[in-house]
């Protein structure tokens, strides 16, 4: 009895697109951080340009979700999954925008990044691992993994805090480099926000699987 073959087919299609969107966003973070590290404007430009694909996928997934809701009237786990996906794509799109902001900062820098590399790289790496875990938890419907990823946000916050004080001190000491320090301070702020959006994503995955709201 294939009562829900149509619904299953549509859900699978949406899931595949969400996985694709997540990996594009992950690449976007990786590449904007790499462009900063290598002072590579060409790579940064490609991050800005490729953001359009992420935006398009978001609109496309949203349209598909609305179609499923109106044509298939999903309930229970199906409805939870659809509503979770509708919210997850907003967070993913926003993470893409932060990568673009960081890439634009790279393009605007005169000298490229200096000593702050170690802070920003560590933050970038951590958010990337968080996103990978979030994606795996979505695919496996594994809420432990989602919780793990969400809890990693504390590390990002701590690193940002440390970085913020470090940059502030430098700002006060060394006025010649103020111009670059401010955008680089923003970069840390953006990565901190990326972590928050991944936490949102993890919360939606937990809701999707368990039907409960957990906040991190």
């Amino acid at each position, binding site marked *: *009895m294939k*009562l*829900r073959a149509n*619904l299953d087919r549509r859900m699978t299609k949406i899931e595949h697109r969400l996985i694709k969107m997540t990996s594009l966003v992950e690449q976007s973070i990786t590449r904007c951080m790499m462009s900063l590290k290598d002072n590579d404007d060409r790579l940064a430009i490609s991050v800005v340009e490729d953001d359009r694909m992420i935006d398009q996928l978001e609109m496309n997934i949203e349209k598909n979700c609305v179609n499923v809701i109106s044509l298939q*009237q*999903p*309930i*229970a*786990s*199906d*409805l*939870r999954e659809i509503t979770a996906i509708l919210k997850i794509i907003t967070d993913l799109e926003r993470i893409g925008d932060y990568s673009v902001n960081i890439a634009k900062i790279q393009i605007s820098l005169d000298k490229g990044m200096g000593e702050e590399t170690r802070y920003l790289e560590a933050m970038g790496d951590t958010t990337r691992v968080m996103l990978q875990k979030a994606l795996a938890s979505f695919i496996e419907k594994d809420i432990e993994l989602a919780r793990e990823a969400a809890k990693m946000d504390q590390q990002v916050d701590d690193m940002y805090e440390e970085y913020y004080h470090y940059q502030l001190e430098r700002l006060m000491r060394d006025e010649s480099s103020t111009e670059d320090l401010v955008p680089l301070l923003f970069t840390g702020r953006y990565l901190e926000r990326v972590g928050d959006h991944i936490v949102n994503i993890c919360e939606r995955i937990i809701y999707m699987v*368990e*039907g409960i709201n957990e906040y991190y």
Partner: protein
Amino acid sequence: MKTFEIKDLNLWYGDFHALKDIDMDIRNNKVSAFIGPSGCGKSTFLRVLNRMNDLIDGTKITGQVLFNGQEIYAPESDVVTLRTKVGMVFQKPNPFPMSVYDNVAYGLRVQGIKNKAVLNDTVEDSLKKAALWEEVKDRLSDNALQLSGGQQQRLCIARAIALSPEVILMDEPTSALDPIATGKIEELMESLKKDYTIAIVTLSMQQAARISDYTAFFLLGDLIEMGPTREVFHKPNDKRTEDYITGRFG
């Protein structure tokens, strides 16, 4: 408040065990929906509530069915009184082949009420409650069989209401109706529940979700779960309920 409390109910048709160890509370002034695959015992269970199964030879019932705290299967319990308090509306509208007015007045006349004014008032009031008055007030003496299917079904609801029941049982009351007539019956249930307790069997998940406060899921004679409709359709407790309502069954 609980209108019905059912405890450890079992029902057999001959050797066939149709309802198994059912425990259920039915709350007053709420709509309770019974869902489940064909043959799982929904109609049988509904009939338990006003002893309609008594009419079927070879049925055996054990357990407790308390209506307002009184055991309805007790020897001293009166079936006729029970059925006026617990009215029933069936899947196929079944008006009697007589006028609209006489259909609604029928039960009252059987009870011996002859006063014309009382009959007039009750007929009008019942038809109003059943949201049919405006459509039939000028054709009260027409034969009820001339009404549309949806009107006939609301007439049957008016007929039940005329006896001032506490509970109205409905077995797939809209499965023979078009979406507009279905919408009218659904709206009607919403307005009726302030005065009555309603239990409805429906094959439509969407209908159960739209109209009921509580949903009970039956499977092969077992009550798998019953809970607030919001919860059952959002995150059912039992995997079998989830599989059924999302169409994963079979």
